[in-house]
């Protein structure tokens, strides 16, 4: 029987080469898309899943206002909750970002970009496998360091690392352990040092200074609610109550006016994809992108399955006679169903093989797009492929099989079956579905394109054209004080200004596109403002061409500008609700400052984000701001830019920092990278759009071909009775035009709703106008007409006699 099935199958394939090829192609593209999505899905869901503590280690996420969650906590919270809440087994502070430093071993220098600063029980929370030393004794004190295997090999080659002495940030550290970094986590440290104890100790009084990540290990994960309650009480006792007292109000009044910090616990297993905070060191997984991608790729697979079902049922009518004969000579319904499912299975097997080839060939581009290194190799994936195979065989195979098995023998053998209307409603329904999906994608990608275009052309409020940003790291160690650091900067500034071609030099404590580095809330009258701190040197705002609305820029001629002058932006002004802000005094972090000017709003974060209220100070006004002075901005004569950059590099490496590579970029280019991910989403959407339209057109082409073939006799009769070509064409296209209109209407509402949802990501967004819909409709109609007309025109040219006589 199998042999018989196979030979019939091969015959059918040979006779329908084009449609078989289109089907296989459509299915392979659909499955390839799903494999890509699954690879991404698996990767994102593998974070921290290996960790035995994933359910009982929690991140303290602090809700600052209804929509803002911080991943950081202040230093005293950890010991306080450990002491008051018996449910807490231990706590561990970790720094909120990787350090990038050079590690010295004898004369060897290795730069390491992923240094994690943590407390000694870090490896109790993240139990990596130790090759040398062990997790318990890895970080007993501030002079210890544990290395990842890769870093150990870089530093010591094949020698044992244990007990060796290395120098980091002018401190000598002893290697106490080497671990294997082979599992994904929210932390992926190249090495871990215990500098955190000291940092916690130094700020143990500062309840309001939220700067470290706090992890809690609970004895029992179900107690998370209790611990949240205890934390709330601690916050109330130590933050809300004293502040209210300071303001001279009751705590209730204070909360009503300024709100309070609400603690939440997020389990380690959920952080990567579901955290409400901005994420830990490795950043969040983009759950929205993941869902969009997964959803769209399933949609594409459904589309190609629909194609297959349509084409199979339409083709089955042609095979009616075969089925009839099989039934007459004794085939049961089950037997026929099995035969057709068998055919589907072969087609799918072929499609999966081709899709694997597609994935293997295009995975480098995909990795570049997601900035990951996924490989097409895991037991999990192959298991999922088997599930996809079975699932697709059932959904794609069962319907045509049952449809065919239900053919009535007598009707079929009498030969009048080919024009039967059986199953037409279903095919038309699926066609409408395809039209709807295609319309959705055309509309959607046009709106996405509009939004990205809008962001590209938006007035940013500053001009970074030809402004150099030189990365200036703290090369003086942890313990340097702010004043000395600023003096060192001044020294560098003077050296740079002497270089030929350099026009202006000014330091800044921010990078355009990355947002401000710190936020300090202040009160004015009864208004609470979360001011983003923007530390600047004289002249920086002018260099960036940030415009002034009121008052004046900072100026070295006014001595108070390095003591207590403050500039704000328009957003802050709006919040202050003050008509004449110049000269007004503000209590800022316990210090009285005076507003001397208001600047026009400019984008400091990516252009999709809302512009926050800003507090702009000169570095000298707030001593600790000098620690943020990590960027030196330079303007130079554009004609000799290359020579000037070379000269700056030369000076830099000789006099400033000979260890680290000289890093610089133009501000405008750097800024563009900040919304790269949205540009990539646009590209992804365009690519998927192309695939969807392609698959839908293949489907339409096949279906139009079958349905026109079915109507060939009718066409022949009409022609005999005198119908002209254009009348026939109208007749043939009519239904497809109607279907495409219905499909378009069905797609419009979800397209509007979902794209609006996507646009909510952006503070500055286009509103959805009628034009994407008009364009989508026109494109859909034109594509439909192009496909159908080409088939219909062929049909009207066909030899009438063939269909009149030999039917």
């Amino acid at each position, binding site marked *: 029987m199998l042999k018989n099935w196979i030979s019939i199958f091969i015959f059918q394939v040979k006779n329908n080469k084009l449609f078989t090829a289109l089907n296989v192609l459509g299915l392979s593209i659909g499955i390839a898309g799903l494999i890509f999505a699954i690879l991404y899905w698996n990767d994102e869901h593998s974070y921290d899943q290996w960790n035995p503590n994933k359910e009982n280690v929690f991140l303290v996420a602090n809700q600052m206002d209804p929509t803002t969650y911080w991943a950081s906590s202040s230093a005293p919270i950890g010991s306080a909750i450990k002491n008051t809440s018996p449910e807490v087994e231990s706590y561990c502070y970790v720094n909120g970002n990787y350090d990038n430093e050079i590690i010295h071993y004898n004369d060897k220098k290795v730069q390491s970009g992923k240094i994690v600063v943590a407390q000694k029980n870090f490896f109790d929370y993240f139990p990596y496998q130790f090759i040398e030393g062990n997790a318990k004794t890895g970080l007993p004190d501030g002079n210890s360091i544990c290395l990842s295997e890769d870093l150990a090999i870089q530093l010591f080659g094949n020698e044992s690392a244990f007990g060796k002495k290395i120098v980091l940030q002018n401190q000598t550290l002893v290697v106490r352990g080497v671990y294997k970094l082979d599992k994904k986590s929210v932390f992926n440290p190249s090495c871990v040092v215990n500098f955190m104890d000291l940092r916690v100790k130094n700020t143990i009084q500062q309840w309001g200074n939220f700067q470290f990540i706090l992890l809690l290990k609970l004895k029992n994960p179900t107690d998370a609610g209790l611990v949240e309650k205890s934390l709330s009480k601690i916050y109330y006792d130590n933050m809300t109550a004293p502040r209210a007292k300071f303001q001279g109000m009751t705590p209730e009044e204070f909360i009503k006016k300024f709100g309070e910090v609400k603690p939440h616990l997020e389990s380690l297993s959920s952080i990567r994809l579901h955290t409400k905070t901005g994420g830990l060191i490795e950043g969040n997984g983009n759950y929205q992108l993941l869902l969009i991608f997964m959803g769209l790729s399933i949609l594409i697979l459904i589309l190609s399955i629909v194609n297959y079902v349509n084409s199979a049922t339409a083709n089955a009518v042609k095979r009616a006679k075969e089925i009839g004969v099989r039934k007459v000579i004794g085939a049961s319904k089950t037997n026929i169903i099995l035969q057709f499912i068998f055919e589907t299975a072969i087609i799918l097997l072929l499609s999966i093989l081709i899709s694997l080839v597609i994935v293997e060939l295009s995975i480098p581009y995909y990795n570049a797009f997601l900035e990951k290194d996924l490989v097409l190799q895991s037991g999990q994936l192959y298991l999922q492929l088997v599930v996809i195979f079975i699932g697709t065989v059932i959904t794609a195979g069962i319907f045509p099989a049952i449809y065919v098995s239900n053919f009535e023998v007598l009707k079929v053998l009498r030969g009048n079956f080919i*024009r039967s209307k059986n199953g037409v409603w279903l095919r038309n329904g699926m066609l409408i579905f395809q039209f709807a999906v295609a319309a959705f994608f055309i509309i959607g990608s046009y709106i996405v394109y509009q939004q990205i275009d809008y962001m590209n052309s938006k007035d940013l409020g500053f001009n970074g054209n030809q402004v150099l940003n030189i990365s200036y790291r703290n090369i003086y160690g942890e313990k340097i004080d702010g004043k000395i650091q600023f003096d060192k900067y001044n020294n560098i500034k003077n050296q740079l200004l002497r270089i030929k071609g350099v026009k202006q030099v000014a330091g800044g404590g921010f990078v355009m596109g990355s947002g401000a580095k710190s936020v300090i809330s202040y009160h004015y009258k009864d208004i609470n403002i979360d001011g983003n701190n923007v530390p600047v040197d004289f002249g920086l705002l002018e260099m960036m061409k940030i415009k002034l609305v009121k008052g004046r820029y900072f100026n070295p001629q006014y001595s108070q500008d390095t003591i207590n002058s403050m500039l704000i932006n328009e957003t802050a002004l709006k919040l202050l609700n003050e008509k004449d802000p110049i000269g007004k005094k503000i209590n800022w972090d316990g210090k009285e400052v005076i507003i001397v000017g208001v600047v026009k709003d400019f984008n400091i974060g990516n252009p999709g984000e809302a512009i926050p209220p800003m507090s702009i100070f000169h570095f000298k006004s707030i001593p600790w701001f000098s620690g943020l002075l990590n960027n030196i901005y330079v303007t130079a004569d554009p004609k000799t830019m290359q020579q000037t950059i070379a000269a700056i590099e030369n000076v830099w490496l000789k006099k400033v920092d000979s260890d680290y590579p000289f890093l610089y970029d133009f501000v405008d280019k750097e800024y563009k990278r900040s919304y790269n991910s949205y540009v990539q989403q646009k590209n992804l959407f365009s690519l998927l759009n192309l695939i969807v339209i392609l698959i839908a057109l293949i489907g339409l082409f096949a279906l139009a071909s079958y349905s026109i073939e079915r109507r060939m*006799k*009718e066409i*022949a*009769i*009409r*022609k*005999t*009775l*005198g*119908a*002209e070509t254009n*009348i026939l064409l109208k007749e043939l296209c009519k239904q497809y035009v109607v279907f495409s209109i219905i499909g378009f209407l069905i797609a419009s509402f979800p397209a509007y709703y979902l794209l609006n949802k996507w646009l909510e990501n952006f503070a500055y967004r286009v509103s959805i106008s009628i034009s994407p819909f008009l364009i989508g409709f026109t494109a859909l109609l034109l594509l439909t007409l192009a496909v159908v007309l080409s088939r219909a025109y062929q049909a009207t040219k066909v030899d*009438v*006699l063939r269909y*009149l*006589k030999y*039917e």
Partner: protein
Amino acid sequence: MITIKKLSKVFRTEELETKALSEISLTINQGDFVSIMGPSGSGKSTLLNIVGLLDSASDGSYQLLDQEMVGLKEKLKAKARKENIGFIFQNFNLIDELSVYDNIELPLIYNNVSASERKSRVNEIARILNISHRLKHFPQQLSGGQQQRVAVARALINNPKIILADEPTGNLDSKNGNEVMELLTDLHASGSTILMVTHSDYDASFSQKTILMKDGVILSEKQNHRNVDVLVTSKN
């Protein structure tokens, strides 16, 4: 009305060349009722199709109403066809998706006849052919004889100059077949020109003249006596 001179039709495949018609000459005058007989493959259907402008000749001359049809453009052929020719097929060739009324109306639509006139003409012809009560039905719901009457109605609705019938009784039982033949005889009696292909001697006996074909040539032409009877009865 129809003048055919040395008309040939050659089918070519990769291997061989078949002459379906070789140098046939034939004249049909207005009011004639001519039947063509012959075994399968004798070329009779090919001849009918060429006369009906569904097929084109390879060589020779075919004049319809003094206009040369061989080598005419498709568009002009279509025009000549819809204005002058009505078809009746063995398998009726009705459009299953359209009702009887719509089927009969179709040629009028293609000839740009106004809606009100279409309606009266369809009703009139349906009355004559005794299918008025079936106008709302679909072809599949009718008996073979009724379907063929619908096909005849469709062929006549446009008052064609010549009616071409390709084995009109082939799919019918003898009673229904007889009815259809009597219908054709009546049409002839009222002045229609009819060219009919048939296998049946009985059917051929209804016509004035029978042409016998074999292997693409006309073997013989004979006058039928029964015609006289018909003419006599029609005069009565």
